């Protein structure tokens, strides 16, 4: 068997390049899909909190109760629907028109007069936990503010004003979700190209019988595998560059790090992404199965378990434990850092290290299963 030949590799890479350029679906996945994703995340999907619709059941008509109701109505966080009884509200909540119901009980005014205001009731829609938590916390907040203004509930011992807490968000002061969704979609796009496309192309060679013909020529498996990785690595980088450009110019996402760092992070992530794709296709040898597994093992974890959409810290611990084996978990914070904070090598370097480690793991696996044999 002959050794590694740069000439054969060059011929194979040229072949792969010609196939990529001629296949409209590659172009679609590498350039059109990222645009759709970006515009979707940039404009249509927003995780920013806007006004939450709540129902307010006012069972009391005393002056303090009315003042509390007014406090809710003027709150910037709520859009309030008023009613006297709870029944109509309940139906609206079931229908999804309301996210929470706040009940001010009938003895509210009397209680205030006595100096011991009774508790108000906050009912939330648990089917949307994030919104429910938000509504409960902010609902309570409005009440506490009102109570302070009324002069109730002040700690008898404390004389001066209580400690005032003023939150300040760094790096993303306006808390705009698109600032972290754009780096997130880069992760999605690179997973699509690195894992899904790569999984499809090797399986395609098996399905069409070209693998068999190639294996009967003097090419080595290293040449074959590298010839698959190189073009898709470059394609993924191009696609990433396009996403970054759109993010910066079209969405005004700040870019505080350096391009070199971005390149290093992307390259490190592409190792496990390409390695996984290669492993899947070499193991399945079938485009349909390969695409299913690539979606399950590559795309979905990147989407759900990387901290892109759902915050990892708020997941239950078994799920959190799983996220450690999702390579994108190390990519997302690195990307967010390089975009929003800058070249924070202390955070980025360990992540790059872990991603390269995963890459090595998948490549070892792929070389194990891609044998030069039809057995």
């Amino acid at each position: 068997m002959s050794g590694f030949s740069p000439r054969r590799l060059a011929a194979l890479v040229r072949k792969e390049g010609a196939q990529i350029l001629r296949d409209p679906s590659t172009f679609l996945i590498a350039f059109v899909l990222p645009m759709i994703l970006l515009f979707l995340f940039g404009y249509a999907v927003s995780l920013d909190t806007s006004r939450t619709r709540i129902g307010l059941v006012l069972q009391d008509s005393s002056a303090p109760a009315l003042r509390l109701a007014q406090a809710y109505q003027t709150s910037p966080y709520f859009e309030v629907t008023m009613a006297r009884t709870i029944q109509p509200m309940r139906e609206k909540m079931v229908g999804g028109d309301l996210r929470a119901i706040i009940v001010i009980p009938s003895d509210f005014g009397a209680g205030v007069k006595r100096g011991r205001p009774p508790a108000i009731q906050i009912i939330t829609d648990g089917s949307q936990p994030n919104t429910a938590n938000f509504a409960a916390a902010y609902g309570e907040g409005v009440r506490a503010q009102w109570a302070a203004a009324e002069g109730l509930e002040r700690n008898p011992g404390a004389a001066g004003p209580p400690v005032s807490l003023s939150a300040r968000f760094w790096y993303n002061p306006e808390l705009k979700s698109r600032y972290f969704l754009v780096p997130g979609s880069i992760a999605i796009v690179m997973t699509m190209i690195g894992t899904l496309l790569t999984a499809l192309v090797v399986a395609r060679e098996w399905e069409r019988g070209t693998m068999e013909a190639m294996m009967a020529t003097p090419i080595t498996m290293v040449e074959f595998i590298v010839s698959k990785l190189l073009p898709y690595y470059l394609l993924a980088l191009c696609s990433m560059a396009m996403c970054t450009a759109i993010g910066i110019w079209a969405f005004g996402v700040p870019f505080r790090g350096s391009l070199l760092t971005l390149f290093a992070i992307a390259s490190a992530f592409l190792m496990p992404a390409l390695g996984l794709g290669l492993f899947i296709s070499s193991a399945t040898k079938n485009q349909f199965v390969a695409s299913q597994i690539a979606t399950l093992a590559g795309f979905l974890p990147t989407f759900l378990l990387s901290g892109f959409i759902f915050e990892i810290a708020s997941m239950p611990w078994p799920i959190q434990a799983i996220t450690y084996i999702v390579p994108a978990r190390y990519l997302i914070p690195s990307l967010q850092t390089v975009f929003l904070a800058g070249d924070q090598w202390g955070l980025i370097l360990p992540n790059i290290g872990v991603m390269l480690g995963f890459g090595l793991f998948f490549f070892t696996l792929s070389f194990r299963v891609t044998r030069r044999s039809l057995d």
Partner: protein
Amino acid sequence: MDGPVARTTDLVKRFDALTALDGVSMAIEPGKVTGLVGPDGAGKTTLIRILAGLMAPSGGEVEVLGAPAGQKLDDLGYMPQRFGLYEDLSVIENLTLYAEVRGLPRAEHKESFDRLLDFTDLARFQDRLAGKLSGGMKQKLGLACALVKAPRVLLLDEPGVGVDPISRRELWAMVGDLTDQGIGVLWSTAYLDEAEKCDAVYLLNEGKLLFDGPPGDLTGKVGDRVFRVTGFKDRRRHFLTRTLDRDEVIDGTIQGRSVRLLMAEDAPAPTPESLDAAGGTVEPTPPRFEDGFIERLGGGPKGTSALAERYRDIPENDQCAITAEGLTKRFGDFVAASDMHFEIPRGQIFGLLGPNGAGKSTTFKMLCGLLTPTSGSGAVAGHDLRRSRADARASLGYMAQKFSLYGDLSVRQNLDFFAGAYDLDRKTAERAIAAMIEIFELKGKLDVNAGTLPLGFKQRLALACAVMHEPPVLFLDEPTSGVDPVTRREFWTHINGLVEKGVTVLVTTHFMDEAEYCDRVTLIYRAEQIATGTPDELKAQAGKLAGLDDPTMEDAFIALIEEFDRKREAKEAA
């Protein structure tokens, strides 16, 4: 180098429970075409893959160019069954890729490409994508890719499958050139007539070598036992049935109006009297490779079909069982079938012949009601295809290409399913299924998944599923592709028997000798019917065109297509 360029000794290859090759010893000599012949599943592809170094043998030895397989790949040319072409690369890009990976020096590229493009007649198409080439052209390009750096061993895995006879003939001519240069060629095929063209033949069946040597040795053994009977009085199918039932006859086939017989080893030469064919003539005829193969397998089946004996009589009536009146199918600009006209009376076999992609299957699918014709009309068993498609479909049995069974259901479940699909009531279904199990000897296989059955059993099961509801019309799409000749005989015994009961059969095939079973055939080429008639009429017509004495169906096919092409070119020139 003297001596063989490749050889195997006691080669064994096992896949789990299946033994694909069982002690095969063979050799490929330089400058010769070595034939690897056998039905599908015989082990041909496995043997070639082992020689190409793509599979490791479970036992025995392999040597290619004096080294273990898989080492001297520089000097090995291999064309897999699907040609190994990149369909999204052009002809010239495919050639360049193979030249580069095979390490042909750049300076020699142009010379090699020019020579191969000229050799394969693909020069005009060098910038066309491989995926847009016809089957014959793909095959030539596949061969060119395997030859781009002159190999010393050339392995061809079923290069003749699914390609029209003209391309097949051209390919043989090319291979002849190669052997003149001293290349050792291994040509694998399921077509037994190709075996006769090889210098040496290895006949494989179920992983075992049945014969090796020059093809003449095998045919020589039956040389004086093959006879042609003509001029008998009864219907040819009836005559064949009753002749096959005689002990001294071990095989028989219909050849147009005559019947070809293979006699048992010590049987006396037949006479019209001994065959009960008064007034007919019996004359010796040259043996074929297939005769030798049949003999090695212990002779063909007897003439009476158990299936036909139980089948209901299809009542006679005066209308045709199948008619096509100008059936045309267009897909966008592409005409897949143009203006098909034929009428098939009850109790006849009608054959659609033609190369792959000519329009056979399209015509077939329109008549089954699977495709709506763009124009024209047709009827099956009196049901118009446009108005009562469902009724038309209910009156036919359909056996699809490659036996479309449910591979992951057992034999029993397949039978149950088709009985249900034909809406047989429970009692009828039970009776029909029991009959099928007995007729096709499926009892021992009832719990086996259909997908894992040997090919011959798959074919039986597919036929069982198609005739369970005793339809008056049968549609058979490439029904015996790749099966061994004995299984093929069995199949035609059943079909002949059913036709005697009044069943009408429409069959597509690219097996030319299968066409001989048909009462009438139509030759489809480039979406058009270029000739229609009885097999004897077509052969006579072709004999006149090509000046041949006793043309085979394949000769007829080639002559008629060439005539068509000539006329078309003349028309285009005018």
